[in-house]
């Protein structure tokens, strides 16, 4: 579990309005994500008519998000593309960097920013706030009609309203928790199999190396799965954000 602990790198006693704002390993990895993203995007800024591999890769990502917004929200959602793209790329990059085998360099250890509820929660609240602001800005109190689907029988309106309201309010939690849990669970799974490898080798029994080998094979498989999960979770976060934005912009 130590892979999830946040430790100050510098400025352990920095404070702002009485709160500790130390530059931690988590903050350091956020900067790494920023740097990697910036370098990646820089490859797409060559703006050639016939793109090279790198430029094509960057354009694939922007096209992917732009198409997602276009499909889920429509032309009105175009101004939210930068936000959803930033969100998607940040989460994808964080997930993948967290899987990077940095520990082969002594003294370093990969840290998954998105395995922290303090990060995913903030991202979720940010998305939810944008949905609320856009919804009330565009539709005023009419936004509440989102909670009463078309064709609801008159008698059922209070009940449906309540259910829809609860499901709406649960959104930020499900959004933030989903990413946090998926990342944490994946890393714990890898951790568990890794400890099996070590314990199998140390057990001294005849069955030990067999367990170690099987666990190692499992690590390979789970690592591949985790790369998939890293991409899927980033996609799910961005997709749900755009779906919620669609609710706010187009109601039902």
């Amino acid at each position: 579990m130590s892979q999830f602990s946040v430790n100050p790198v510098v400025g352990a006693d920095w404070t702002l309005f009485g709160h500790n704002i130390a530059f931690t390993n988590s903050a350091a990895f956020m900067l790494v994500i920023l740097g990697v993203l910036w370098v990646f995007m820089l490859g797409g800024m060559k703006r050639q008519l016939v793109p090279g591999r790198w430029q094509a890769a960057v354009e694939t990502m922007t096209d992917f998000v732009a198409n997602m917004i276009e499909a889920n929200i429509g032309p009105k959602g175009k101004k939210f593309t930068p936000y959803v793209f930033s969100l998607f790329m940040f989460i994808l990059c964080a997930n993948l960097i967290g899987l990077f085998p940095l520990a082969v360099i002594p003294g370093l250890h990969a840290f998954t920013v998105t395995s922290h509820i303090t990060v995913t929660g903030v991202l979720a609240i940010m998305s939810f706030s944008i949905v609320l602001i856009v919804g009330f800005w565009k539709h005023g109190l009419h936004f509440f009609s989102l909670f009463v689907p078309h064709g609801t029988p008159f008698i059922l309106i209070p009940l449906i309203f309540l259910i829809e309201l609860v499901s709406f309010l649960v959104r930020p939690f499900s959004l933030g928790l989903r990413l946090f849990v998926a990342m944490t669970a994946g890393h714990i799974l890898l951790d568990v199999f890794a400890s099996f490898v070590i314990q199998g080798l140390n057990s001294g029994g005849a069955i030990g190396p067999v367990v170690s080998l099987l666990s190692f094979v499992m690590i390979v498989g789970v690592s591949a799965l985790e790369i998939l999960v890293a991409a899927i979770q980033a996609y799910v976060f961005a997709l749900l954000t755009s779906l919620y934005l669609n609710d706010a912009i187009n109601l039902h």
Partner: protein
Amino acid sequence: MPQIDQISTIYASQLLWLLLVFAIIFVVIGNWMMPKIEGTIHARNDKIQGDLDAAEKARDESASTQAAYTAEMDTAHRGAHDAVQAAKDAATRDTEAKLKAAGEAVAERVAHAEVALADARGRALAEIENVAADAVRDIVERLSGAKVEEGEALSAVRASLAA
């Protein structure tokens, strides 16, 4: 689980650095770099669409040129055929006229010749009658010594020739 155990000590640091980094990503990457990359994609798509349109236009143009060429060739062929036909007809007509004229001339000359022949025959016959009449008078005079009148001899010769 450190994510939950540590919340009370790290929340401010996590929030601050996350907002800082995400704000930079949003402004620099989301709002500055991404629209430019999207612009490149749009420019490329527009260029491809424009090129396709131009190619299609060129193809249509070449098709219409081809059609015009074929039509013109057809007209030319037809014109040439007509000219040849007209020349053939004219030649035929000319030949026919010449043949007809020549035929008429020949017929006329034949008619003249026939007339002349008939004339000559008439004259020859008359000559023969005269000669015969003379001979008759001569013979009669020698045989009988009687003189036969010229008119009488002639009518007798005519009567015997006609028989």
